[in-house]
Structure formats: structure tokens, C-alpha cells
């Protein structure tokens, strides 16, 4: 399998504070790669560096063999990087349907369209005329994923999707991610929820205070309780 996304030796700062220290990993086509780490470890920052919301100070991001370091975020979206931000950022004053239609702004063609989205997310069809801001937290999480899928990304970047969701919604989300995997969707996930991560991932990496400290396939990770204690317990 070939690497679709390469993150090479990235250093990143917010102002003067150094957040990522030489982060490197790669995501293969069709796999679900999970970046784990405690609150504040640097998961979101890594995602922001990949889509160039925060361009890395040094290091490279290579997507489909092409250097994307320093591009504008809208350009990375058009190339096929679909970020689902952890804070969801739906457009609350627009309707659910309008939110979904804005997702097509990548101009990318693919098999996702409104009809298919509604078959995967029946609740969104039911609420399509409602203002998105009136949806529940779980529904908003579904909407933000669906909105990004509408742009037919080549890789889906899901930043802590289970955060703040009820156990029932986490189950719904798990089923959705498993369905996306069946469609051979490439997914880069960030999580703190170990159970969720083990249920959906193929490979797992751990980031700790801006350093990549671990990488293994999910079966190895499943058995590795010492690592979980050391880097992921709260």
C-alpha cells in the first residue's frame, strides 16, 4: 500500500511557544490511522499543520507525492484533505442543507452527493430545512462529518470526533466510521477514547507533549497496556 499523506519532521509554534517537535508519520491509502494523546498533547495542532491552517515552521507535509507545505488551507481542501474540526464549526444560522451544500466548495467530483449523504445520515434529511444551530451536539457532529464528505476528500481528518458525545452517539459514530472504512475511505483520526480508537483503527500513533512517542498496528496496541498507562491514562 502506498503512502497518501507524509508528515515529515514538523516543528510548529503558536507565537513563541513551541508545540510540535519533529513530528513524523505517514498514512497509507485506505487505512484508518489514529493519533492518540492526552489533552494538550498536540493532536489538533498536528491536524492544523497538515491542512496549513497553521503552517509548520519547519518540516514538510506531502500529499499524494506533492509538497503542500505553505499552501493556503482552501487549496489543501481542493487537493482532497478534508478536515472535520474538533469544535465542529457548523454554520448555525444556515440550514442543514445549506451547510451540506457549502461542503461541495472543493469542486471535487466523487461518489458523495446529497442523496448518498442522506442515506448514510437519515436524521440530516429529516432536519434539512432546520437551522443547523438548533441540532443537538451529536447531530451537529454528524453534520460536520457529512459536510466534509460532500467535498469528496481523498483523506478524512477527524479530530476527536467522540469528544462530548453520549455513549449512544459514540456507537452511531463508530458504525459510521466502520461503514466509511468499508468504502475504502482513508481516515486520519485523533482520539483520546481508547476503546473507540481500537474499534476503528488499523494503526495507532501516540503524541505526547509534541513528540511522537509510539507507533504500532492496532493489534499490538491493543495488548500494550503499559503504553496506554504511560501516555493515555488520565
Amino acid at each position, binding site marked *: 500500500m502506498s503512502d497518501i499523506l507524509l508528515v515529515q519532521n514538523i516543528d510548529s509554534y503558536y507565537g513563541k511557544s513551541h508545540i510540535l517537535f519533529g513530528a513524523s508519520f505517514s498514512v497509507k491509502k485506505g487505512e484508518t490511522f489514529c493519533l492518540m494523546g492526552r489533552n494538550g498533547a498536540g493532536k489538533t495542532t498536528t491536524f492544523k499543520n497538515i491542512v496549513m491552517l497553521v503552517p509548520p515552521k519547519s518540516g514538510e507535509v506531502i500529499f499524494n507525492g506533492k509538497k503542500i507545505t505553505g499552501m493556503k488551507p*482552501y487549496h489543501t481542501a481542493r487537493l482532497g484533505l478534508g478536515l472535520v474540526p474538533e469544535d465542529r464549526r457548523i454554520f*448555525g444560522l444556515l440550514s442543514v442543507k445549506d451547510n451540506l451544500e457549502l461542503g461541495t466548495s*472543493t469542486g471535487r467530483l466523487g461518489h458523495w452527493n446529497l442523496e448518498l449523504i442522506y442515506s448514510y445520515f437519515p436524521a440530516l434529511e429529516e432536519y434539512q430545512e432546520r437551522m443547523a444551530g438548533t441540532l443537538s451536539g451529536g447531530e451537529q457532529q454528524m453534520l460536520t462529518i457529512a459536510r466534509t464528505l460532500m467535498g469528496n476528500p481523498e483523506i478524512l481528518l477527524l479530530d476527536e470526533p467522540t469528544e462530548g458525545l453520549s455513549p449512544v452517539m459514540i456507537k452511531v459514530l463508530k458504525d459510521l466510521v466502520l461503514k466509511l472504512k468499508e468504502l475504502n475511505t482513508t481516515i486520519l483520526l485523533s482520539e483520546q477514547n481508547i476503546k473507540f480508537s481500537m474499534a476503528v483503527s488499523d494503526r495507532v500513533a501516540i503524541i505526547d507533549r509534541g513528540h511522537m512517542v509510539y507507533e504500532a498496528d492496532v493489534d499490538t496496541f491493543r495488548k500494550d497496556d503499559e503504553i496506554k498507562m504511560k501516555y493515555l491514562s488520565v
Partner: protein
Amino acid sequence: MSIETIISQFVGGLSVSMLLFLVASGLTLIFGVAKVFNFAHGSFYLLGAYFSYQAIALFNNFWAGVIAATIGAGLIGMLLEICFIRKIRGRSEEGAFQILLTYAFILIIDDAVKFIWGPEYKTIQKPPSLAGTLEIGAVSLPKYNLFIIVLGIVIVIVAWYILSRTKTGKIIQAASTDSQMVGLLGVNVSMVMSLVFGVATAMGGLAGAMAAPLRTVTSGSGVEVIIESLIVVVIGGLGNFWGALLGAVLIGEVNAFGVLWLPQWASLLSFVVMIVVLIFKPKGLLSNEPTRKKI
């Protein structure tokens, strides 16, 4: 007071409202989308008036003036956005820079106008086709004012359609709440902002050209207009398109009737209305709060 006077005063007020709306809606749109408070917005109204004067001098046709004003002001607006305003976006001191920069535009445009067209007042005649009055029963209404009202209504309808029914409009609405997220969905938000700037300044230019036959054209009129527009957008809710319409109608009519009933206070009435509104609705009548319905 007779009903005829009331109607004719109302129509006069409404035509002023529409001109105000053209300027104020652009101001509010730029603020909503680009988070720029464009102090120089009145200067595009000014440019519109002078471009119109120049085009009429060249082509001897009022409508050539209107077109030149609209396109000319829009192009210059877009150019200033691309060359200057865009450069300071995202800086930590952005707010202060915006004030300095747009204030500098006021001074530069004012002086450029005086330099090119001279300091003396200019006048523009109404087009012959709109020169007379329309008699409706016992009321006689100036055709030109009626035309401005119709034009204003057409623009409101077109703007409503674009903002609420087209993808571009939805992008503009979304960008005014979270432009970064809109970018993450693949939209070139910088380009959208330049476009909004261009359209907004074009509307300012159009207002300047349409107002010219009713007022004298002088280099100070840009500043007068920006103050009135500021009152309008503050009353309506900064960043809210419909608020600009509501504020403009309110101010236009208050002034029209204020002149009749409280002539000695007329020049203060706009401020009084603003203060009263702000006491009860500190964010303006239709502020962009999450409780607001769709644009």
C-alpha cells in the same frame, strides 16, 4: 397636516433612505464578511459623484455617469482591498491598522478629488426623462425620487436573492460567522472578500451618482455620508444587511418628518434615534446574534 404633505414627505424621505441604504448596506456587508470597518466607505460615494460628473461631461448622458460611477468606484474599492486591506489581515494589531488605513484613504481620496476636479462645487442635472413630477390625485411627486425608490427596491430584491438563494450568498453568510471554516471547505475566501468589497464600493459609487442631482457635489460629502451611514448600521446592527435597510428607512423618514415638525432640531434627530435604539437594543435592532433568523 394634509395627507398630501404626508405622502410627499414620506416619498422624499424614502428616496433619501434608499440612497443611505446603498451606502450603509455595503458598509455592513464589508464589516460582516471581512470584519473591516471601512471608514472610507463614504469616499466611494464621493468618487461615484465625481466619476459621474466626469462621464457626463464627456458623453453628455446621465446614465453613462451612473455606469461610470458604479464600475469605477467598485474597481477602485477592489483594488484598495487587494493592494492594502488584505495585507494587514490577520495581524495582531489589525483593528488599529484598519482604522489608520481606511482613514488615510479618506484623506487621500478627498485630496485626489480636489486635485483632479478642483475645489469648487459641481452640479449634475437630473436626466430629462426623470425631470418632472408625477401627479397622483392631489399629490405631485418628483419622478426622480420615485425612480430612486424603485431602484432601491430592485437592489434590495436582487441582494435578497443573491444572499439567500445562491451559493455565493450562502458562502458570504457563512464567511461572516466563520471565514476560516469556509476556507477549509475549499472556498478562496480572500477572493470572496475582494468581490464583496468591489460590490459594496460599487453600490456606494452608485449612491453618489444618484444623489448628485439632489445635492451639490463637493469633496466634503464623503465624510457626511459616512457619519449618516454609521448611524444607520449602528441602529440596524453592525454586520446585518436587513438592519441596514431598517436603519436607513428609519433615519430617512425621521429626517423627512423631523424637518416638518421639529425644524430647529432636525440635524440632531438621527443621533437621538440612535441613542434611543441603543438604550433598548445595545447591539442594534437586528444584531447578528445566534438567535437571529437567517438573513
